[in-house]
């Protein structure tokens, strides 16, 4: 028998090189130090930090999480120490890891805050990419930036001028047409799209007749949203040229593969980090095995290779 060559798991997202396409999703992995005792962080393709804002944020009124069928709701409300404290206290640990660090950012009041944040982060060489979180459902806004194609275009265009770093735009699934928003981000110069953020949701305690979350409503994540996410990745893949980072309820190798086949170039593991901190590393191994079993040398043989049922 011919000894099979190990498949090449590396991918390119904009100017960002990943040794493997498995990342951890923003908000589910803190600033990585929280997981240091539990997994070998250096094996991850990349780490996306919890979202940072200009000033620190206290976050929303507790309770902030509740379990739902095959999923969970959260309304954390972007609790974070702010950019200065992040750079001072959280970034040194991330820099030491030697793997790509993607910093997720959001604005509280005006889009100008994104510009200020991007200018700051652009000057730090150890930061590999910036993720624009224009889709957080927990800021009590009437409308998210990513729910409007024009606002998405303007925001991405505004920050694009100030950085050469890989710019990822994270989109909300709470829209009529994901492709319309995806196209707007692409034409404004985004290097990649992260699909999807959480779905708006609500859960009620029937005995108390109160919402289960202090903020009343929150974002749904976990395997419950996976079919929605896979569909949106597939829809966007058919219309855009820039890479897609797929996410939404990835728990294991099989669920990660669904995203690649639907059109993702890389994937992020989110809620699964709470359930089993080993999930992301097991997916890296499982993906490699799948590619060997199917004689695939590169991920380009997998991404978007969806066939019709009758074939």
């Amino acid at each position, binding site marked *: 028998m011919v000894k099979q060559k190990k498949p090449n798991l590396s991918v390119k997202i904009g100017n960002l090189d990943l040794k493997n396409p498995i990342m951890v999703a923003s*908000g*589910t*992995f*803190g600033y990585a130090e*929280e*997981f240091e*005792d*539990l997994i070998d962080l250096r094996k991850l393709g990349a780490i996306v930090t*919890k979202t940072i804002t200009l000033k620190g944020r*206290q*976050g929303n009124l*507790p*309770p*902030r*999480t*509740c*379990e739902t*069928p*095959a*999923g*969970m709701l*959260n309304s*954390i409300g972007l*609790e974070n120490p702010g950019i200065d404290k992040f750079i001072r206290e959280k970034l040194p640990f991330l820099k030491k890891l030697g793997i790509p660090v993607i910093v997720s950012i959001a604005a509280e009041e005006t889009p100008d805050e994104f510009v200020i944040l991007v200018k700051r982060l652009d000057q730090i060489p150890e930061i590999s990419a910036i993720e624009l979180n224009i889709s957080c459902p927990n800021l009590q806004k009437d409308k998210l930036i990513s729910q409007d194609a024009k606002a998405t275009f303007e925001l991405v265009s505004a920050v694009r001028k100030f950085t050469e770093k890989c710019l990822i735009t994270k989109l909300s699934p709470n829209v009529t047409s994901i492709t319309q928003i995806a196209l707007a981000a692409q034409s404004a110069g985004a290097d990649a799209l992260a699909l999807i953020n959480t779905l708006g949701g609500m859960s009620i305690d029937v005995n108390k007749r109160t919402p289960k979350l202090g903020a009343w409503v929150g974002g749904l994540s*976990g*395997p419950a949203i996976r079919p929605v996410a896979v569909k949106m990745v597939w829809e966007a893949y058919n219309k855009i040229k820039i890479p897609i980072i797929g996410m939404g309820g990835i*728990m294991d190798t099989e669920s990660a593969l669904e995203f690649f086949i639907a059109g993702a170039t890389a994937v992020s593991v989110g*809620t699964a*980090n*709470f*359930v*089993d*901190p*080993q999930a992301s590393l097991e997916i890296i191994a499982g993906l490699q095995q799948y590619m060997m079993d199917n004689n695939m040398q590169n991920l380009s043989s997998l991404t978007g290779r969806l066939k019709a049922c009758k074939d």
Partner: protein
Amino acid sequence: MSIAQIKAKIISNQRLNGNYGHLEFESGLIAKHAVAGQFVNIRVADALEPLLRRPMSIHGVKASKVKIIYEILGKGTQILLTRKPGEFLDIIGPLGNGFNYPRLAKSTQATNILIAGGMGVAPLIFLAEKLKLSKPLVLIGARTKKQILCLQEFKALGCTLKLATDDGSVGFKGRVTDLLRIVLEQTKPLGLFSCGPHPMLKTVAQIAHENKIPAQLSLEEHMACGIGACLGCEVLTKTGYKSVCKDGPVFSSEELIW
């Protein structure tokens, strides 16, 4: 001490007093490093329902065995009750900051009062064992006699026990915090240690403040990650929100804002 994710063998798992369960698992690592007041985060089954782990106070350790007790309240604990000796459980621990007692543990003279409400006995047994030289006074409150747990275990440690039930079926008729007020008329302890429902802990904090006695309170919250990453189990303190899972579950009563 670092935390670990382990596959722990179940040694025993039995129903206790009707609606409670008592489970022992094997983990030399957790047994060796656990501090009273810390918890473990258990994946009750390798399934998507329930999705999240269940945080459980460490009830005690013996050699390489770790004990927990749990109230059978919902799907997660119902599944946990079906798990059999010899099977393996996916456990992360030991987690959080426990009670602060190293100095008290060496004393034979210290007077400390432990106040448990319902399932709040779980971490307080472990603490009573650490403080056994000074034979702490233990107050346990529950709705009825049937919900009073671990009496024999506290007695075996030489603790003095006082009970309170809402219906008066055993001990003082009324709230355990009313019983605490009566007890404090006669004794001035060095410290209060408490675990139980949120309203009870709030009253213990008030009583501690009025009597100028330091109190350490173990809080309970729904958790997603259990390791301080998701910021889902936050509690408001004088220095802002803190994570019950990582900064707690034990907090000084003066630190908390109710």
